[in-house]
């Protein structure tokens, strides 16, 4: 396993998808993210780990400008996706979020049918010209989220009627349906049981073939299992960023070592 991960990460040494420079985030007076610089690779799973309140979710939400919805949040520095600064005045956050999909901590399907849940994004972005194309996108997305076989006979039943793990995979399908380039996942498995977690993790590994996946997780085991790159956040600082294997086997910073060995966090 050790070897395979290493080869995989070697293979995915390619384009930089997201690059953050001197990112600062303030919530009112609170300095939540302090001078974060990070380069996230395309077609790679990058894990953000760290103790609660360390700013990993905050930073994740900067990548698709979800922090814009919080009145008191203020962001400085620049985040570039494929070279374009997403905080540039010309960037429309709505358009950005279609490119940078997000899966949240708690499964949050719309209280609509399974089909409508997945079809919502493509509909509002006009990705399908007719019903047949929409059907195709929905099927493809549900297959992509490894949910198709379970729900294909009840596409018009409420999405909220699914089990927790299925709901989360439905949310992934919904995010995938808008054909994003980056998929952000904010502790996607924290509300799931181990079996559902296993399914979602397997899915994340498959999704890596199509886009850059950034996942925030509390579980170091999960970070070790799914990611090729890991970033360790502590008190708003990005302490260490590197290959997952290196972070977990030979961390260079004492705080990282303390965290992964369970002494802080």
């Amino acid at each position, binding site marked *: 396993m050790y070897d395979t991960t290493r080869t995989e990460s070697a293979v995915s040494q390619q384009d930089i998808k997201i690059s953050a420079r001197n990112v600062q985030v303030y919530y009112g007076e609170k300095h939540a993210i302090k001078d974060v610089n990070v380069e996230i690779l395309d077609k790679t799973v990058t894990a953000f780990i760290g103790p609660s309140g360390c700013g990993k979710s905050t930073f994740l939400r900067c990548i698709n400008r979800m922090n814009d919805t919080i009145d008191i949040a203020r962001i400085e520095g620049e985040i570039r996706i494929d070279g374009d600064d997403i905080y540039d005045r010309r960037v429309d956050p709505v358009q950005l979020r279609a490119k940078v999909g997000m899966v949240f901590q708690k499964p949050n399907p719309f209280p609509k049918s399974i089909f409508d849940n997945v079809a919502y994004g493509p509909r509002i972005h006009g990705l399908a010209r007719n019903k047949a194309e929409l059907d195709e996108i929905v099927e493809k997305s549900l297959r992509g989220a490894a949910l198709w076989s379970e729900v294909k006979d009840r596409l018009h039943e409420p999405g909220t009627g699914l089990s927790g793990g299925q709901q989360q995979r439905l949310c992934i399908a*919904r995010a995938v349906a808008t054909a994003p380039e980056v998929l952000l996942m904010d502790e996607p498995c924290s509300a799931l049981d181990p079996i559902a977690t296993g399914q979602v993790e397997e899915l994340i590994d498959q999704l890596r073939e199509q886009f850059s996946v950034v996942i925030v997780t509390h579980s170091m085991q999960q970070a070790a299992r799914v990611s090729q790159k890991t970033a360790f956040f502590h008190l708003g600082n990005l302490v260490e960023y590197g290959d997952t294997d290196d972070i977990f086997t030979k961390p260079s910073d004492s705080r990282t070592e303390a965290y992964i060995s369970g002494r802080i966090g």
Partner: protein
Amino acid sequence: MTDMSNHASRISLFEVDPRTRRRNAAEKRFRAYGATAICIAVIALVLLVGTILRDGSGAFRQTYLSMPVALSAEKLDPKGNRDPAEMSKVLTLAYGRVLDDALDAAVAQMDTQIEGLSEKDMTGLVSKEASAQLRDRVLADPELVGQTVDVNVLVNGRIDGYFKGRVSKESAERDSNTSPQQLMLADALAEDGVLVTRFNREFITNPDASDQRPEAAGVGIAILGSLYMMLVVLFLSVPIGVAASIYLEEFAPKNRLTDIIEVNISNLAAVPSIVFGILGLAVFINFAGLPQSAPIVGGLVLTLMTLPTIIISTRAALKAVPPSIRDAALGVGASKMQSVFHHVLPLAMPGIMTGTILGLAQALGETAPLLLIGMVAFVREFPAAPPEGLFDPASALPVQVYNWTQRSDPAFVERASGAIIILLIFLLCMNLLAIFLRRKFERRW
């Protein structure tokens, strides 16, 4: 340490320690308080509804003289040309005489004769409104003149009250408006089947009547007026209120200005309703020059009063929608407006509708502001159909109730309670509608 655990283990579980006993007693006491409070509330409700039903159910029954009336041509159409213009010169007095003759004939046919029956007792049996009603009927159809038609003639409010238990022979002794002899005559007529009590449809359809004619008074105009006002309130307060709430809750930046607006909306909900009446009088009637007593003005005033209620309940409904739904919508690239209109609003709909209907129900029962804008006026003419009718004088149900309780004739107390029953039925229907809508929309997850 070991001693302590030994000590603790000595207390058997079958023994209830004093602390637990006190706790259980406190809980039992609290439950008793709760049950008592609910009992008091239920008793109060039963008493209230019981009293209103007892006093008001009489308004839905009415005593009539059901007798043939000969519409004599020489009295009602002296020129004999059946021209409505000519006939309208004949006053109600002549119709009163026609009715008196008919009553005389009916009394003459009876087996029993009542001793000491005066002329006044005979003519006083018939309501003063009856001749006016007969005149209206004949003028509407002049061909009736010369024929003998069956007419349901309204009887005097005292006689009506006698059959509803409000008037007795003893009270008639002291009453200058009736006499025991008149009541005996009424008994005899009832035995003959001439005097009948039946359902009073006119109470719901008739306009108000003057102080001397409680038997003819109805809530027709009041119902129509209330309905018109509710239409105005519905069409103004719902769009304005919901739009304002959505803006404040979902779009407005949270700063000092919006804080001030928020506080003021809450304060507005607590402003006494009569203040809104003064505002309406000053702004809508004196400044804008809208007519007095008109449902449009009442509707505008009630809109101002209902807006805070609708805004507060709508905002509560919007707040109750989990933020995760907004995140989900924004997360797939929906705009703020799409997330609100596609996801938040449908989920908040049951709450918004419930709040709106309760706001409307509150407005329906509001009296004080309407008094100030002249809705208390005595209105006999039905308003036209909306929208023109919104500018015609009308009354309103709660104002009608207030109005009737001011009058001296006890028959109006019965009418007032009857109007309250109608008002309560409307309120009940609105609340049922609110519950129904909430259920219906909640079923769609």
